[in-house]
């Protein structure tokens, strides 16, 4: 019988990789999750602690998938602290995925927003010319740089890093780098995932120049299936209509880039 993706499945963490002092990748075996599309996410149950939406990270090994989690509040810290051999529950995959164009591509990721970008890289054609921008606060928060390079071995490509404090790569916000690049040349597709303000500026930069741009949004999620309403952005439900939205669509959404809803559902300013 085929697995209903809404039913919680228990998986065992087989490997834990430290990416930075606050970011870890947890690898597990699951056919369904190993084949998700870039932009899709899972609801991840940390037994006794919480359940969180997590983008599904790729793994080099077939039949395996991973989550790359940044230690933040109690829930993500709970996941961060899961040891090899421990069990978590997963359901999904949920959400739509990126529409991958051909040609000159720009991928922009900040923090764990790089996760869907890494999976997107696994779909690019050898003929695509790919630029990956990695934004971080400082040097020790940079990760997936090598991973991105290794995935693009066969492509004409660049992997650029910018840090807010200049401790590694270019100094400044990654969105300044985006603005510079889209000003210099046309991209056939721009893809971004990271902090909302970073996505907002990237979308603006690309969309205002008529480029095809997509962002993978994050919102408070409870159900993941479009019934609880907690993930709404304007009239869109991120879990079901997204997570990926076109720049065209986003530029008419009054909440994107400006407001999010807290756990009580009250609109708050970013």
């Amino acid at each position, binding site marked *: 019988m085929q697995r209903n993706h809404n*039913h919680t499945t228990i998986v065992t963490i087989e490997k834990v990789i430290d990416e930075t002092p606050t970011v870890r990748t947890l690898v597990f075996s699951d056919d369904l999750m190993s084949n998700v599309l870039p932009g899709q996410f899972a609801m991840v149950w940390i037994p006794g602690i*919480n359940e969180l939406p997590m983008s599904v990270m790729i793994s080099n090994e077939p039949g395996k998938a991973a989550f790359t989690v940044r230690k933040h509040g109690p*829930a993500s810290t709970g996941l961060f602290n899961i040891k090899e051999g421990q069990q978590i529950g997963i359901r999904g995959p949920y959400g739509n995925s990126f529409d991958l164009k051909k040609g000159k591509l720009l991928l922009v990721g900040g923090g764990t927003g790089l996760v869907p970008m890494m999976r997107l890289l696994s779909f690019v054609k050898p003929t695509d010319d790919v630029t990956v921008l990695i934004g971080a606060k400082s040097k020790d928060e940079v990760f997936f740089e090598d991973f991105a390079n290794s995935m693009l071995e066969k492509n004409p490509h660049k992997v650029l890093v910018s840090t807010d404090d200049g401790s590694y790569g270019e100094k400044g916000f990654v969105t300044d780098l985006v603005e510079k690049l889209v000003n210099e040349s046309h991209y056939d597709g721009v893809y971004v995932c990271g902090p909302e303000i970073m996505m907002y500026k990237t979308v603006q930069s690309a969309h205002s120049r008529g480029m095809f741009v997509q962002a993978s949004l994050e919102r408070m999620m409870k159900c993941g299936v479009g019934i609880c309403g907690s993930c709404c952005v304007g009239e869109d439900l991120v879990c079901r209509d997204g997570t990926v939205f076109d720049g065209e669509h986003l530029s008419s959404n009054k909440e994107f880039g400006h407001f999010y809803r807290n756990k009580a559902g*009250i609109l708050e300013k970013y």
Partner: protein
Amino acid sequence: MNQLLYSKLSSLFKVEPSLATSIGKIQLDKPMMLASGILGISLDVFNRLYRSGAGAVVTKSLSTEPWEGYPNPTIFSVKGGGWINAVGLSNPGATNFAKMIESNQTVPIVVSLVGSIPEDFEFMIKQFENCKVTAYELNLSCPHVAKVGLEVGDDPELVRKIVTTSKNSTDVPIIAKVGLGTTHYLNTVSTAIDSGIDAITAINTVRAMAIDVETQRPILSNKFGGLSGTPIKPIALRCVYEISSKYDIPIIGCGGVSTWEDAVEFFLAGASAIQLGSAIGDNWIDVFGEINNGILEYMKRKNYSSIKDMVGLAKKS
């Protein structure tokens, strides 16, 4: 009029059936409503649901103050179908919410309220003075939050006071939403009717739970939650039939409706309108349009011109 003659006449005049319905004084263009707690926190989403064919939307149950609700997991998908949720009535609070919907002129909005004492309801209704509210729905039946919901619905004296106070606070119709609690829900219905309620919504979710056998823990953070969706349909249908057999009160059927057949079953049992929630998790928002179309086809086939032609028909047999 003789049924045969009627059907001949109506096929001559090709009466186009209308989906409009009335729940007592409440008039709706379409009989399918969004149930409380489902997608119900933003006016933009309400507008979208209305365009998709919902005749009205019920808001999340609002409290006097904002509530964060329970931590995740708050929703569990049951192997045999349906969901168990313990969202914990998270909501922005009546005051914030009223501001959010002030600008609404288009969508028929039913404001769901939850509270512990009559004054809570009086206060909340006041917050909506400047809003276009189609009706209030008193949630007397949430099965998984202490001090409100069923703990209120199971106390007849409190039900009487809350309904009376709410009725005195507004001219807008007031609906009581009942469910299976620790006392007989028909007593709650009876008390609510005696206290002047305008309509009944039946039913809310049914208290339930799920345990993961690998980690050996209840899955929901609150342990207990409310079962919704297909599993509770036969139970909800029986409640609607029982209420409509015993009392003369407009009823909104709720619980597990996901197809037009389900909706028609509820009409036949005595419901004048229907709420749905869980079906959206499976069929997404299109479910409203699909069910509306199915009902229309059925009405054409059976030669009904309006929803009320079929309300309660199953009680005749």
